[in-house]
């Protein structure tokens, strides 16, 4: 009994780590721009594919050992995925923002960008799923009936480290201060000599970079890639971010783990087809109980 509980907790932590990593990207962009970047789930998918190509290149073309390939793959994937995110911002969102379009038009553009990423991938690479090459040897540990792999532990630790890093960036650094300032008042910030566009680019770099990292880790844990893998996980991560209180780093992190925990618990007790139904119902109840999410602060509206 106890073993199965601990086992489920470990599974939930690992599953929640992916949601948390993606939700962090959503919340960063939302916090700064109040833009729901619906393409983020697909940036995650692109990250997984980039990781696939990079690691296959290192493993087969250069015949590097697995750990060297992984060590090179992590920064390269993050940089390339960040470039994808910044490109989207540059060519799709920024011109609209400069024209002063309604916020929701930018959201629709983001949706469209996600569709393009998904289907361009499908059109260019074909519908066949890609098998991710094993980079490190997976060890299975068994302590008192609880089994876990080194990969699972690595995923959980990475998620926590990324959270601590982003929290440090947002609360302690000058860039983070600028980010918070932009989310507070977008019109006064340029007057204070803060380069608005550069800060936004930094936000997209951080968000997309860690989405790429999540893609790499996801591909290592579940080594089958398909173009639609980002869509559902992206929507769910967004919901997780909102439940945590969108715009708040802690909220996204907690929301991701909460969603992971709910899903794993549902699967443990119910047929797995009920997973989405019960998970979303729980989240809906949380939102009805706390309309601005767990960490969200209700804004007072003045006339």
């Amino acid at each position: 009994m106890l073993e199965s509980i601990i086992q489920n907790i470990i599974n939930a932590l690992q599953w929640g780590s992916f949601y948390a990593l993606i939700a962090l990207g959503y919340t960063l962009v939302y916090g700064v721009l109040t833009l729901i970047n619906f393409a983020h789930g697909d940036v995650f998918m692109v990250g997984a594919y980039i990781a696939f190509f990079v690691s296959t290149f290192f493993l087969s073309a250069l015949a590097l050992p697995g750990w060297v390939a992984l060590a090179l793959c992590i920064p390269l994937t993050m940089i390339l995925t960040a470039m994808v995110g910044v490109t989207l911002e540059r060519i799709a969102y920024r011109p609209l923002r400069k024209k002063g379009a309604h916020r929701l038009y930018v959201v629709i553009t983001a949706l469209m960008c996600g569709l393009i990423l998904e289907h361009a991938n499908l059109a260019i690479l074909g519908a066949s799923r890609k098998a991710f090459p094993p980079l490190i040897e997976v060890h299975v540990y068994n302590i008192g009936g609880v089994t876990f792999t080194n990969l699972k532990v690595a995923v959980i630790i990475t998620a926590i480290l990324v959270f601590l890093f982003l929290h440090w960036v947002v609360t302690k650094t000058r860039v983070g201060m600028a980010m918070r300032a932009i989310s507070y008042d977008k019109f006064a910030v340029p007057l204070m000599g803060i380069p608005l566009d550069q800060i936004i680019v930094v936000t997209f770099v951080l968000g997309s970079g860690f989405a790429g990292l999540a893609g790499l880790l996801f591909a290592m844990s579940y080594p089958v890639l398909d173009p639609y893998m980002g869509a559902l996980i992206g929507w769910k991560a967004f919901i997780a971010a909102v439940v945590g209180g969108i715009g708040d780093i802690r909220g996204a992190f907690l929301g991701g783990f909460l969603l992971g925990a709910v899903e794993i618990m549902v699967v443990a007790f119910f047929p797995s087809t009920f997973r989405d139904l019960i998970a979303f119902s729980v989240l809906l109840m949380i939102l009805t109980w706390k309309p601005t999410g767990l960490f969200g602060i209700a804004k007072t509206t003045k006339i």
Partner: protein
Amino acid sequence: MLRRYSVHLALALTGGTIIYCAYQEYLSLYIMSILMFMGVNIILSTSLNLVNGYMGEFSCGHAGFMCVGAYVSSMLGVWLFAKDKVFGAAVLDPEYALYAFPLIILTGGVAAALAGVLVAVPSYKTRGDYLAIITIAANFIIISTIENIGAIGGSRGFMGMKRLVNSMEDVVELPWMPIWVFVFTIFSIWVIRRYVSSTFGKGVSAISQDEVAAEIMSVNTNKMKTITFMLSSGLAGIAGGLFAYILGYVNPGSFNIMKSTEVLVMVYLGGMGSLSGSVLSAILFTLLLESFRFIIPVINDFAHQFHLISPDYDISQVWRWVLIPLLLIILMQFRPEGIMGNRELGDIFPRLKRFYRFK
């Protein structure tokens, strides 16, 4: 005199022509089905525009309500008028299907309106992007509830609606589906127009301008939101019912978030708070979607002709969903407020107002 009845006349002429052509089979089934989907899309985009445009909320789970309407009306229809392995023999004589059909579709709409309460109640306290998430979650919840009910087919879908349509055509030999799609399309545009231009409906745009101020000015915002959400989702349910009977087959997968995205695109392409914009963009979007079926082979031949791509790669229909979003993004860059902005046709061409009156 002419000015007063010109819209009625134009509608009667258009509807009459389409139905006459369908009756005489001048138009192929393919073109007929495109026209019918156009009608469904018009209902969807105008009804979502009521919430997203006029009321200024951001609802992105419209397909969920469509799904409720589609399932309720098709189950009701099949239970009453058709022999089916789920419900057994028909309860009533299939001859009455002709008269009951609009009621069946409306029942689907009512059921969808009740599902709309699921979103309307949280909207009392929640607004903006938090409400958006509730609508997305509602969409997911509706889809996966239906997927989990094995009795009505689960994720495999539900069928048998064609029999009902056939039995309507057995009684009176007319193209009933185009007729009803046309009637309900006009009906929903009329309802929305009447609603937002009524004194009561002015509260909807008051909420979009400033919710707190509206409340102070004695607009009962909760009631307003409930009614608007229910009306919008009810119309979406009607569209869903029609969609189900046009196809003769429904499965939950066709009402997923992708469908909601399509509807959202139609609304924002047309312009927020513009009824004629929504109608126009629904027509354009449907045509665009279908025209790529023919454009893509042409592009493919062209590319092969000039050796732009390798001979063993064909540009397939998958590219449709790359090119359409791309086109829409480019369109948004040039007209960031949509085709019509928040104006109606009469505001853009003031001279037109001399010839019609539409309330």
